[in-house]
C-alpha cells in the first residue's frame, strides 16, 4: 500500500518536473533566444 503510494508520488513529481522543463524551455525560446 505504502509502496504504491510512494511510486505514485514519485511519478507525479517526475511528470510535474518534465512539464516544468518543457515550459521553461518554451519560455527561454520565446523570450531569450
Amino acid at each position: 500500500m505504502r509502496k504504491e503510494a510512494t511510486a505514485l508520488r514519485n511519478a507525479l513529481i517526475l511528470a510535474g518536473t518534465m512539464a516544468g522543463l518543457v515550459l521553461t524551455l518554451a519560455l527561454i525560446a520565446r523570450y531569450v533566444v
Partner: protein
Amino acid sequence: MKRLCFLAPDVGNARSAVASFKSAGIPEEQIYALARFGTDMEFLPDAGPEANDFLPAYTRGAGIGGTAGVLVGLSAMAFPPAGIIVGGGLAVLLGLFGAGLGGLLTGMVGAGAGSSKLREFESAIEQGRILLMVDVPKEDMDSTVALIRTQHPAISMEGLEPPHSLIP
C-alpha cells in the same frame, strides 16, 4: 522522533515484533519493514519511501542543478554572447531549468538505488534478514528497546538510523 533500527532473523520474528510494537501503542504508520526482493511481506508494513533514495537524490540534484543554472545565467549576463541581449530573466529561467533537469536525472538514478542511509544493512537484508525501523518519541526509546530485548531476544538492536550520506 527518533528512528530505531532492528534486524529480525526471519519473517516470523519480524511479524511478532511488529505486533508487539502495535500493542505497545506505536501506530503502523511509524513502523517500516525492509526485506530482500521476493520475501512474503504480508502483515508487515513495507518501507515505502524509505526503501529507495528518490526524494533525497531529487532534492540534491535540484539544488545543484538550480545553482549551476543560475551561475550560467549570471555569467551570460556578465559576458553576453555576441548578438544576444541577456536580461536577469535568463538567470531565473536557467536556474529553473537546471533545477528541473538535475532533479529529474538524479531522482531517477536515486529511485533505482537502495536507500543510501540503509547501506550498512544491505548485506544483512541480502542474507534474508528483515530490517525493522520504528519512529518513536525520544522518551519512549528505552522502553521500545527493552520491549524487544525481553520479548524478542532473536532480534538484534542496530541503534538509530544512520544519516543520509552527502555523496550517495
